[in-house]
């Protein structure tokens, strides 16, 4: 299955892009997608081991399940306000 990964702010700069499609075997968790991400995108190696993530625009855990077509956002430390 395919998951669309979004990268923001400092993570987008590290990875050199703001989005990438990642293929993983189903069933998969957020961690599995991040693992594949690091493999396909060299710059993603600089991401923290346990980044903040959202799946389909809702905060998620690393062990949350992802489904085909989901949007997984890797969020740098929040700094609003």
């Amino acid at each position, binding site marked *: 299955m395919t998951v669309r990964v979004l990268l923001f702010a400092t993570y987008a700069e590290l990875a050199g892009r703001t989005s990438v499609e990642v293929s993983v075997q189903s069933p998969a968790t957020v961690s599995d997608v991040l693992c594949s991400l690091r493999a396909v995108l060299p710059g993603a190696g600089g991401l923290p081991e346990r980044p903040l993530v959202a*799946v389909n625009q809702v905060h998620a855990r690393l062990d949350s399940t992802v489904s085909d077509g989901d949007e997984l956002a890797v969020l740098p*430390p929040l700094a609003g*306000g």
Partner: protein
Amino acid sequence: MPAYLTRLPIDVSRLTALVTRSDRGGIASFIGLVRDHQDGRAVSRLEYSAYEPMAEAEADTIVREAEARWPVRVALQHRLGDLAVGEIAVAVVAGSAHRAQAFEACRYVIEEIKHRVPIWKKEFYADGDIVWVDPTAARCGSDRDLPAGSRVR
């Protein structure tokens, strides 16, 4: 759902008018301004960016939480894009019949905004340095916990 994110200057009196009604006697507000220094270094400007659809949804959730928990009406705006020192980055206004509840709701919303809404801040220092702000850096290094209070899928 109103637009909580804006690229235009924030007008606090307009937000105040949105929550004012003749039966709401207490209006508590918080305004966050761009400061001219950070950790002792001179800041010349900054840039806010966001994961916009999620930031709008999360801001709306926070406002609804406050309005469900207290008898208040809340208005909120967060600025995106380039900001100069002294400009308003965020404004929260809570109107209620009772001042304690207006304060509590206002405080709740600004704290949750900071911890849950996907917005990022890039600081441009006077010495030419550019830094992505990491409010968690001093606390726990590069590992992040889930924001407190977040609903998790």
